[in-house]
C-alpha cells in the first residue's frame, strides 16, 4: 500500500474482521457496510447524529482499553477495534430496550407501525424477556393532531429527536419541539400553532415507532398486506423517488426513497399525499361525450370515433395540442409522434405560458442538483420560490446553504422560503430582473457596481463579492405576471459568469420529459428542432412539421380569433393554469371542437370539451419520468386504472390507428427503443441501464442540437405613480383540480390576500384584511389586502390560483409586466 492510499482508508476491526473504513465515516455506517447492523433509534443517515437513544452503544477500543461508545457519533479511526456482540454490549442493549419499553403502551396490535416498527423488531432481536417495571406508565392524551394530516401519540414516542431534528435542521420549520424536561419531556407544538410545514409527512416516515401517523394511512392497512413498487413523484419536476404502496389494488401510501442525487428520502406533503386524487370518487372511469350542456359517459369506440372524426376533418394547421407534462416520457413521445408526425401540426405546447423558452432550458449548460449543491459553491436563484413549487429541491438547496457553506443569492421579486438562509436577497422591480443580472455580473467581473432595477449599488456589490466557487443559476418563473422574456434576458446575462451552469426550475410534473419529447413548437424529440432533426425521423415518422407552430399563448389567441378548429387538452386546464384567464376563456368559448385526455374533469373540460378520454394515472401505468436535471427514472405500475381508463400512449396509438397509421408501439419498452434510436441524447437509454439505475435514475446530458436563443431585449414600459406592478407566484397548495380531489391537501390552500409593502399599504388607507378592488388592463379582482415588509415598494403580490381569486384574471400574456391599481372597493 502506498502512502497516498493509506490516507484514503482506515482499518477498523469489527468483531474480529478487518474492514477498510472511509475517513470521517461514522462507525455505525462502517459497520453497516461491513455487514454488521448496529441497532439504533435516533440515528438517521440524513441528519446530524445526536447520540440520544444510546441503543447503538458498542465496545470500542482505540488503544486505551474497551469502552462503551455510541457508534452513531464516533468517526472511525485507524486501528479501532469494535466488539458489537460482547455480553457487556448485549446487556446494555437489552437494558436500553427495557428502559424504552417501561413507559411504552405496548399497543402494537392497534398501532399503524405494527409490523414495520424498529422498536418492535429490535425488541425481538435484542430486548429483555419480561418487563420488571410494575409501576404506572406515563400518560398523555392519545393522539393529538399536530396539523391537518399528522397525529402525535406521545405515549408511544421514544424521544429520538428525529421529527424535531427534521423540522429544525432539514425543513427549517421549527414548529414542533421538545417541551418540558427529563422524564416529562414530550414533543409538541406551541399552543394553537400547528406544525404547518410542507414537509410534515417526512416526520411520519422517519418516526421509529408509531408516535406519528398520517391521516391518509391511519388504520388503512398492515404492512404485511402491502404491495410496493418503485416510482417517481409526479406533482413537480424534482423527480423525487418514491415507493408506491397499495393494498387491495388501491394506492394507500407513498414513502420517499433515499436517492442520493435526488431527494435523499424526503418528500413534500404534496408529493406524498397527492395520490389521493387518483382514488377520488370523481375519477373518470370511462370516456365522456358532450350532450348539450352535459358530459355523459360513453364507450371507447364511440369516443374515439368522435375524436378521430374531428381530427381528420381539420386542416392540420388548425389543430393544436396544449399540455403533456402530466404524461410519462413514453406517452409524451407517442403524442408528439401523433401530433407532429401523423396529424402534422406543430401547434403543440406543453407549457402554459408559465414556463420558459424551451431552447433556453435545453441550450444552456445544465447543472445537476448535486452540482448546484456543491459545498462552498454559489447558488443564484433567478426563479420561483422552491419551497412553494419544488419541495424536494428546496430541501436540497437549504441543506447546501445551511450545512455545506454554499452561498445563496436571490434575484427574486419578493422574499422566498429560502430568504432566511440566503446570503443576499435582491428584489428587482418586476420586469427588470435582467438589468439587475447585468449589474451583478458586471460587478462580479470587476466592473463598478451601479444600482439597477431598484436595488442599490451597495447591495449589488456585496452580493457580487459573494460569488465564488462553482456557480449554479436556478432559472424559472418567479412571477407569472411578467413575461418569460425577462427571465431569458436575465439568464443570458448571468451566463457570462465564468463556469456558470443552469438548473431549470420549471415546476410542472414531467415538463422536462415533455420538452425532451418535443412537445413544444419547433422541437422534435431528443433535444432537436424541426429543422435540424427532421432527417433522423424520416424512417420512424410519416412526416415532420415543415414550419414552426404556435405556443400556448399563440394557440389560444388564434382560437379566440377563430383560427383553430380542434384543440386537444392533453391533461391541461388553461382556464386555471394559463397565465391569462380572459384569453383562455375567450379561446375555449370560440374554439369549435375540444378533445381532452384526463383523469378528472377540470374547469376547462367542463366548459368546452366535446370528447373526454379517460386517462390512467401515474401509479396505474408504467413509464419513465425526466426530472429537472434531465434524469430519467422509472415509474412502475402498481394498481390497475379505474374502469376503462387507459394509458395516454395507448390512446395515441388508437387514434393514430383510426387515422390510418400504426405508431408501432405495443409496450412502453417498444416506445423507449424508438426513442433511443431516434434521439442522440437518449442513445444510452436501454432497459439494462434503466434497471441498474433503479434508485438514482439515468442522467441524460447535453443540449443535442439546441442553440441558446439570443437576447430578447425586453424593456417594460414605465408605470405611472398610481399603479403597482403585479407579482403572481405559485404556492404549494392552490386550487388545482388534483389538490381539490386530495382530502389531505384540499384544506391547505391559503386564503388569498394581496400583499403590499407597508408604505404602499398605508397609502390605500384601509385596515389589514379589507377587501380592495385590484384592476389591471384586462381584468379585475376583489381581494383582501395586507402589509408585508417582504414585498418591495411598488409591487403587489398575489398568489396564483388561490380559491376564488384567480390571479390570472389580471394578466395579459402578451405584455411584459402587469400593472394594477389597488383601490378601496
Amino acid at each position, binding site marked *: 500500500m502506498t502512502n497516498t492510499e493509506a490516507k484514503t482508508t482506515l482499518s477498523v476491526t469489527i468483531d474480529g474482521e478487518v474492514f477498510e473504513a472511509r475517513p470521517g465515516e461514522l462507525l455505525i455506517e462502517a459497520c453497516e457496510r461491513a455487514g454488521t447492523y448496529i441497532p439504533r433509534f435516533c440515528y438517521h443517515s440524513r441528519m446530524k447524529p*445526536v*447520540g*440520544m*437513544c*444510546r*441503543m447503538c*452503544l458498542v465496545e470500542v477500543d482505540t488503544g486505551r482499553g474497551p*469502552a*462503551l461508545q*455510541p457508534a452513531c*457519533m*464516533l*468517526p472511525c479511526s485507524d486501528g479501532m477495534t469494535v466488539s458489537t456482540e460482547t455480553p*457487556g454490549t448485549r*446487556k*446494555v442493549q437489552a*437494558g*436500553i430496550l*427495557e*428502559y*424504552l419499553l*417501561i*413507559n411504552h403502551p405496548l399497543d402494537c396490535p392497534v398501532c399503524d407501525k405494527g409490523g414495520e416498527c424498529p422498536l418492535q423488531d429490535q425488541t425481538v432481536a435484542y430486548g429483555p424477556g419480561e418487563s*420488571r*417495571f410494575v*409501576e404506572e406508565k406515563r400518560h398523555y392524551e392519545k393522539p393529538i393532531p399536530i396539523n391537518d394530516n399528522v397525529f402525535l401519540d406521545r405515549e408511544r414516542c*421514544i*424521544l429520538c429527536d428525529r421529527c424535531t431534528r427534521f423540522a429544525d435542521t432539514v425543513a427549517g420549520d421549527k414548529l414542533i419541539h*421538545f417541551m418540558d*424536561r*427529563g*422524564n*416529562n*419531556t414530550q414533543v409538541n407544538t406551541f399552543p394553537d400553532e400547528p406544525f404547518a410545514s410542507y414537509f410534515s409527512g417526512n416526520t411520519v416516515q422517519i418516526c421509529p415507532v408509531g408516535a406519528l401517523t398520517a391521516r391518509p394511512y391511519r388504520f388503512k392497512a398492515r404492512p404485511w398486506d402491502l404491495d410496493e413498487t418503485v416510482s417517481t413523484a409526479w406533482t413537480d419536476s424534482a423527480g423525487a423517488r418514491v415507493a408506491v404502496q397499495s393494498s387491495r389494488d388501491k394506492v394507500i401510501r407513498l414513502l420517499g426513497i433515499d436517492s442520493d442525487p435526488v431527494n435523499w428520502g424526503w418528500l413534500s406533503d404534496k408529493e406524498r399525499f397527492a395520490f389521493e386524487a387518483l382514488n377520488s370518487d370523481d375519477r373518470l372511469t370511462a370516456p365522456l361525450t358532450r350532450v348539450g350542456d352535459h358530459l355523459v359517459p360513453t364507450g371507447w369506440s364511440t369516443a374515439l370515433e368522435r375524436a378521430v372524426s374531428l381530427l381528420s376533418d381539420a386542416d392540420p394547421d388548425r389543430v393544436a395540442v396544449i399540455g403533456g407534462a402530466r404524461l410519462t416520457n413514453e406517452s409524451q413521445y407517442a403524442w408528439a409522434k401523433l401530433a407532429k408526425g401523423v396529424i402534422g401540426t406543430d401547434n403543440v405546447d406543453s407549457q402554459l405560458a408559465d414556463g420558459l423558452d424551451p431552447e433556453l432550458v435545453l441550450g444552456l449548460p445544465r447543472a445537476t442538483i448535486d452540482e448546484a449543491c456543491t459545498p462552498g459553491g454559489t447558488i443564484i436563484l433567478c426563479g420561483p420560490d422552491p419551497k412553494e413549487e419544488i419541495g424536494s429541491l428546496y430541501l436540497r438547496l437549504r441543506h447546501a446553504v445551511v450545512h455545506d457553506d454554499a452561498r445563496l443569492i436571490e434575484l427574486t421579486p419578493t422574499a422566498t422560503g429560502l430568504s432566511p438562509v440566503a446570503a443576499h436577497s435582491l428584489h428587482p422591480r418586476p420586469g427588470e430582473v435582467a438589468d439587475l443580472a447585468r449589474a451583478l455580473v458586471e460587478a462580479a467581473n470587476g466592473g463598478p457596481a451601479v444600482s439597477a432595477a431598484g436595488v442599490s449599488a451597495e447591495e449589488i456589490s456585496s452580493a457580487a463579492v459573494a460569488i465564488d466557487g462553482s456557480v449554479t443559476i436556478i432559472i424559472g418563473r418567479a412571477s407569472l405576471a411578467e413575461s418569460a422574456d425577462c427571465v431569458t434576458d436575465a439568464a443570458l446575462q448571468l451566463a457570462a459568469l465564468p463556469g456558470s451552469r443552469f438548473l431549470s426550475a420549471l415546476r410542472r410534473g414531467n415538463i422536462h420529459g415533455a420538452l425532451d419529447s418535443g412537445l413544444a413548437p419547433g422541437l422534435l424529440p431528443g433535444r432537436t428542432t424541426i429543422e435540424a432533426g427532421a432527417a433522423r425521423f424520416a424512417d420512424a415518422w410519416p412526416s415532420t412539421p415543415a414550419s414552426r407552430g404556435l405556443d400556448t399563448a399563440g394557440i389560444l389567441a388564434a382560437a379566440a380569433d377563430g383560427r383553430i378548429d380542434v384543440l386537444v387538452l392533453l391533461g391541461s386546464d388553461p382556464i386555471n393554469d394559463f397565465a391569462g384567464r380572459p384569453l383562455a376563456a375567450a379561446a375555449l368559448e370560440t374554439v369549435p371542437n375540444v378533445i381532452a385526455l384526463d383523469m378528472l374533469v377540470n374547469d376547462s373540460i367542463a366548459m368546452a370539451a366535446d370528447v373526454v378520454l379517460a386517462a390512467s394515472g401515474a401509479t396505474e401505468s408504467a413509464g419513465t419520468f425526466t426530472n429537472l436535471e434531465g434524469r430519467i427514472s422509472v415509474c412502475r405500475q402498481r394498481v390497475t386504472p379505474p374502469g376503462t381508463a387507459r394509458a395516454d400512449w395507448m390512446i395515441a396509438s388508437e387514434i393514430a390507428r383510426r387515422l390510418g397509421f400504426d405508431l408501432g408501439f405495443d409496450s412502453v419498452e417498444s416506445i423507449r427503443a424508438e426513442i433511443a434510436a431516434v434521439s442522440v441524447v437518449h442513445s444510452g437509454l436501454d432497459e439494462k441501464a434503466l434497471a441498474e439505475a433503479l434508485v438514482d435514475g439515468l442522467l441524460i446530458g447535453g443540449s443535442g442540437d439546441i442553440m441558446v436563443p439570443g437576447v430578447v431585449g425586453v424593456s417594460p414600459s414605465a408605470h405611472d405613480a398610481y399603479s403597482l406592478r403585479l407579482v403572481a407566484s405559485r404556492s404549494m397548495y392552490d386550487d388545482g383540480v388534483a389538490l381539490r380531489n386530495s382530502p389531505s391537501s384540499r384544506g391547505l390552500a391559503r386564503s388569498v390576500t394581496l400583499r403590499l409593502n407597508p408604505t404602499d399599504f398605508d397609502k390605500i388607507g384601509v385596515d389589514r384584511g379589507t377587501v380592495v378592488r385590484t384592476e389591471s388592463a384586462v381584468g379585475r379582482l376583489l381581494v383582501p389586502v395586507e402589509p408585508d415588509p417582504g414585498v418591495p415598494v411598488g409591487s403587489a403580490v398575489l398568489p396564483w390560483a388561490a380559491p376564488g381569486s384567480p390571479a390570472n384574471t389580471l394578466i395579459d400574456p402578451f405584455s411584459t409586466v402587469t400593472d394594477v391599481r389597488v383601490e378601496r372597493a
Partner: protein
Amino acid sequence: MPTHAYVPHAPGYVDNDGPKIITKRFPLEDSYTLERSEATGGYAGLRAALDRTPAEVHTEVRDATLLGRGGAGFPAGIKWGFLPPGKFPYYLVVNGDESEPGTYKDRLLMERDPHQVIEGCLITCYALGLAQCFLYVRGEMALAQERIARALNDAYAAGYVGRNILGTDFSVDITLSWGAGAYIVGEETALIESLEGNRGMPRLKPPFFPAAIGLYGQPTIVNNIETMSNLPWLMTNGAEQYKTYGSETSPGTRLFAVSGHVRRPGVYEVEQGVTTFRELFYGDNFCQGIREGHELKMFIPGGGSAPWFFPEQLDFPLEARPVGAGGSMLGSGAIVVMDETTDAVKAALRLVRFYARESCGKCTPCREGTTWEERILQRIVDGEGRPSDIDLLLDVADNISPGPYPVAAHPDAGLDAIPFPPRQTTICPLGPSSVAPITSTIRRFRHEYEAKITRRNSIAVSAGSVEVAS
C-alpha cells in the same frame, strides 16, 4: 484579625486562621462594592497581568497548577492551552450555576466579592485573547445577580471592563447571563446550550470539547467562579507564592462547605491536601465535632454526585487524587455529614430523586432509569418493597453505569475501594451520579434495606391486628 466566628453578612462563612486567597474581603461588610474592593487591592492583579504579555500570564497560571474548582479538578492552565490557534473568536464562559447538592461557595464568592470574580475573568480574557466573557449565574440566585450586575456597571464606568481597559489595547465585554432552574446546566456543554438559548441538554464529548467547539461552535473556555476568583491573588503574588500553600499536586486553598450533623457547619477556606476530613469535622477551627451526643455514620465528600465515605476514610487528606483512588471524588467541595440517626435508605432516595428530577431527558438510561430507581426506592421507603427490589435496583443502576461502581473500601467486610470515575451508558455524568447513593448505601447498609422490606411483610402478616391496635 480573624474572628474565628461566623460572619453575619456572609451567611455560613467562618472567619478563620490560615491563608486567605479568595475570602479575604468576606469579613468586610461592604466587600462587594467597587470602593471597598479598590481600597483593598482590587484590580491589582489585572494591572499586574496587563504589565506582562498574555503568554506570560498564561504561563504563570499553568505553573501554579491552578486546579478547576467546578468539580472535575482539571488544571486551568492546561485547559486554556487546548484552544486551537487561529479559530477566532474564542469565548470565556464562567460557570456560576452552583446547584450540586451540598455545594455552597460560588454564591458566596459572587455575593461577597463580585469584583474579584470579574477581575479573574479579565485576567483570563487577557491571557487568551478571548473576545467576550459570559458570566452565567444560577437563576435562583437573585442577590448574586444583583451584586454582579452592579459590580459590572461600576467596573465598566471605571474603565476596568469594556473598550481599552485601563487605557491599554485590551478590550473585552463581560455579559451577565442567568439561568432559570436546571441543575444540568452546570455541566459545561449544557451551559453552552443554555447560553445559546436552547434547552440545557449536554453535548456529547468527545469528540469535541468546548475548548475546540463550544459556544456558537467557537473555541470556548469554561471555568468555575472559584477558579476565576483565585486569579487576582495569583497574578499579584505569583505562582511560586501560590504553591507554598496546599500540596504539590493540589496547591492553594479551596472553599469547603461542610453541612449536616456537625456542631459548626460552615464554609471554610482550607489548604488543600494538607488538612484531613477528620481535622475538618473535629478541629476547633472548623466544625468542632459531630453534633452533641451523636457519632459519625457516613459523609459525602464532594457533593451529591460523590460516592459516600464512612469513618474509615476520615484520615484522607482533602486532595483530589487520594479521594479518587479511595473510591469517591472531592468534586465541588461540598461535604455532607450524617450521624447515626440518619436513615441511609431515605437519604439515598432523596439524592436519587434529585437526579430523577434534574435529568435533562436526553439519554434513555438517565431519563428512564433515574425515575425507575426513584420509584423502587420510594416503594422500599414506603414499606412496599419486595425482596427482589434490591437486586432490581442494582441492575437498573448497572444499566446506567455498567460494571463495578466506585465505592469506598469497607475494611471490616474485607472489601477494597473501587476508584473513581464510573463507567457510563449516558452522555454526561448526571445519570451515573444517581447510582452513587444506591451502591454506597446498599454495600454498607443492606440490612437497612432488608429491614424495610421485611417490615412490609410483617405488616402484611399482622394486618388483621392493625385496626385493633389503633
